[in-house]
Structure formats: C-alpha cells, structure tokens
C-alpha cells in the first residue's frame, strides 16, 4: 500500500515540476522581453519608420517592419489557404477510397513540414531568380507561402478527419455531389480553419530564415509587391547585432511588438472560433 502511495506522490511531483518549468519559462521569456523592451518602447516605435540615424540610436521606429511582417504573414496565409484547402479536401473526399495514394500525399506533406525554413528561403530564392523577381515583398510572400502550406494542409487534414463519416453520408444520401458535400464539411470545420490560419500566421510572422534572402530589407514602408520589405524578426536580428545600447534595447522593444501582434491575432481568432462554432455538432 505504502509503495503505491509513494509512486502516486512521485509521479504527481514530477508532473507538477514539469508544468512549473514550462509555464515558468513562458513567464520568464515574456518577462525578459517586457523588462528589456519597455524602457525603449515609445509611440515612435510603432508609428514611424527608421530615421536617418536610427541604427546609431537616433529617432525613428519599426513601423515599416510591422507592416512588412503583417503583409508577408497575411499574404502567405491567404495564398497558402487558397492552395491548401483544395489539397485537404481532395485527399480526404475524392481519393479517400484509394488509401495508398492519399497516404503518399500525406507523407509528402509530413516531410515538407519537417524541412527547415532556410530551405524554403533558398528554394523561394531560386524561384525568384528563375522568374527574375528581386528580393521583395512578393518574394517574401512566396517563400513564406511555401513554408506555411504544409502546416495548413496538415492542420486542415487533421480537422477534416474529425468530421464524422455519417455527416458526409448524410449529404451524399440526399443526392449531393462530393463538392456539395465538401462545402458542408468546410462549414463544419470553420473553427478548425481558424486554428490553421492562426498557426500559419504565427509561423509566418516569426520566421527569419525564409525571408532573409527573399524579402530583403528596407527602411521604407512597403508600398509595392516588387519593393524590398522589412520584417520584424529581421529588424530584431539587425538591431540586436548593433553595439549601440539604444539600438539593442529597441530590438527588445521590437520583440515586444511582435509578441503583442501574435497575442492580438490569437485572441481575435479565439473569438472568431467561438462565433463560428454555433452550428457545430
């Protein structure tokens, strides 16, 4: 008896400790960003582009990088969805009867999912060279789209597989075509689509390697798809490398901004998920 109680206590302690470590590091990270970033945080940071002496500690902000990041992550997510939804529908609802084929496709996306983002950056760069596109907002969007497609397909695939077979049977029995059935399935998984968007956006906005060669960097606001665009992660990277203390501090302020943007997106999508779950079985 005493042995069983000790065992229970041991494993419970282990779980509590692990939870504390994980949650603790979350607060540690957020705390560090806040404590280091807040002193350098000001309205200029989010309303101005870098001024002449920004990188030696003079006035300016990272609005160009904020906007650039939003454009790239947003554009890539939208483009990625346009490609991923048909793929997920196709492997689940059209070739489902041929398990071998759909499994091969799933395997391909699993492999793509594991590929480091620098490879997507390099591949995106090749595509750009081929089409004669220089480092630009468009280039960044293409590279990040490649990066997020596997995330989107895998997430959507998982979500579609949770839809009960009977729901599909129900619409098919009414004489619906597969596409009409797919539309009902898409309605059913709307909350899941938002989760996929969230994951994709979060990954896209935070990734450095894929935009390193493809998006370039610019101190100006991105105004055209063909102009280089700054991104927050790269802005953080460049500022952190500076010997000037002021600039290093701003790197943390930029990290704070990035964290807050992701936080806002998360909260917004949670709200949307609730709103669209109304009819879910």
């Amino acid at each position, binding site marked *: 008896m005493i042995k069983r109680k000790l065992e229970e206590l041991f494993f419970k302690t282990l779980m509590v400790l692990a939870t504390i470590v994980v949650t603790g590091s979350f607060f540690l990270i957020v705390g560090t960003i806040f404590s280091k970033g807040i002193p350098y945080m000001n309205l200029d940071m989010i309303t101005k582009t870098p001024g002449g002496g920004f990188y030696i500690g003079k006035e300016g902000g990272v609005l160009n990088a904020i906007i650039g990041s939003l454009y790239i992550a947003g554009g890539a997510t939208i483009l990625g969805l346009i490609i991923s939804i048909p793929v997920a529908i196709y492997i689940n609802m059209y070739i489902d009867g041929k398990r071998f084929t759909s499994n091969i496709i799933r395997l391909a996306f699993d492999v793509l999912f594991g590929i480091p983002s620098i490879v997507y950056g390099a591949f995106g760069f090749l595509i750009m060279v081929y089409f004669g596109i220089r480092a630009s907002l468009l280039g960044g969007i293409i590279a990040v789209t490649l990066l997020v497609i596997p995330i989107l397909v895998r997430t959507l695939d998982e979500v579609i597989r949770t839809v009960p077979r009977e*729901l599909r*049977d129900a*619409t*098919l*029995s*009414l*004489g619906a075509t597969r596409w009409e059935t797919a539309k*009902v399935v898409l*309605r059913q998984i709307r909350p899941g689509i938002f989760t996929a968007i969230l994951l994709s956006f979060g990954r896209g906005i935070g990734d450095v390697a894929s935009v390193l060669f493809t998006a370039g960097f610019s101190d100006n606001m991105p105004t055209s798809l063909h102009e280089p665009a700054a991104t927050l992660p790269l802005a953080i990277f460049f500022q952190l490398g500076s010997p000037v203390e002021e600039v290093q501090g701003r790197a943390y302020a930029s990290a704070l901004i990035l964290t807050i943007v992701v936080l806002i997106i998360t909260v917004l999508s949670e709200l949307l998920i609730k709103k669209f779950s109304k*009819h879910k079985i």
Partner: protein
Amino acid sequence: MTTSPHISVQNLNVHIENQHILKDISINIPNKKVTSIIGPSGCGKTTLLKSFNRLLDDIPNVKIDGKVLVDGENIYDPSVEVTHIRKKMGLLSQRPYPLPMSIYDNVAYGPRIHGIRKKNELDELVELQLKATGLWNEVKDRLNASATRLSIGQQQRLCLARGLAVGPEIILGDESTSALDPVSTNIIEDLFINLKQKYTIVLVTHILRQARRVSDYIIFVYMGRIIEFGPTEDVLLNPKEELTKEYVKGFIS
C-alpha cells in the same frame, strides 16, 4: 410474394479490405412495406443497407460484384448517375447528424442542391416535411435556430424530414433509434409505420421488439449471408432455419 419488389438484389458480393463481407446476396425488397434486416453485430446488415444507395463506393478498398436493381435499373451500372440513385433514398443513421446550419436550412438543403430556389416553394416544403415528422409545432417559432439546439430525438426527426424533402421513394434506416430514449424511439417507430403508405422502408435493427412492431418482412443475416426471409411473424415466431431459431430464441420464450 403479393407485391412487386422495389429493390431487387441479385448475387451481390461485397469485399472490404479483402474480407468477404456480403456473400452471394439475392433478395427482393417489397414495395411500400417495411422490411427489417436483423442479425448479430458485424454480420453485414449495415453494409447490405448501404449497398442500396451506393454509400459503399467511398469506403477504402471496397469491391462490389452483382446487381442491385431499383425500379428495374441496376444502380451499379457505370452509366448510372449516383446522385440520382441517392436522391431516391433517404438515409437515417444511427445517431442524428444535423448539418451545421439552421433547422430551416437543414430541411431546405436537399431541395436547394436539386435546384429549388424559390423562397415560397422552399417554405412550403420545409413546413410540409416538418409536419410529416411531427416536428412543426415544436420548432415553427425557431426555424432559424441552430439544428444542434434540438434534443437528440428531435434531431433524428429533423434528419428524417431532411431526407423526405428531396422526395425519395425509399427510406433506409440504420439502427435509427439506437441513440434515442424510449419516447423518441416510439415516435420514430410510429413515423415509420405511417410512412410506409408512401415509401418503401428498409430498416437495420437489433431490437427484435422493434422489428416485430414496425416491419412487414424480416431478413435475417448471419456472417454475410441471408439465412431467412419472410413475413415478420413467420421469421420471429416460427423460424424455419436453425440459426434463426437460435437468434430469436430469447424473443419467443
């Protein structure tokens, strides 16, 4: 048999993942009667039912041989439009699966995909079918509410109304009351008895009491074969085959 068959199955063999699920099935399902398929779990009852509206098509690694004639037309003929076959039959599954939309849209879904767009026509149809399933008075004030707000028994009747709205000739029920409480079960059973005036009904059930109460004919399936087929009283009370006797034993005594 006095009535002509509505569904005629001829030498149907179904393999799924290399398992022989249905073995040489030949049966005539009488028109405008209730026919129940009974048998132990895993005997192929549901597979047989789903072969009637080609819902087996999408199952991985399925192989179907033989003929299923509905109104004299072989539904497995390559030239047959599958949506046209399915439109002829309404399916009521084990648990209700309302579509992720409002009560009204659930019933209107079928007519809409088959081209009925006019609001007043749809309104009429929705009211008619909700009345046919006894749901109208319970939901008429909240037609735009989500279908998932209904109780499970109401949801099952909604699913029946949804199926009837496309104007089928046949109703297929796959253990349609197994998730319902006794009161809802009774309502559904009564609906089946009423609906057989207009529809041919095929039910899969493992409740012998239900089979006796609602059906005119019974098919006993065991290990993928039809062991016995005949009028309800004969099969349940005077089974000819040993296997049937064994299965309905508890029911007779």
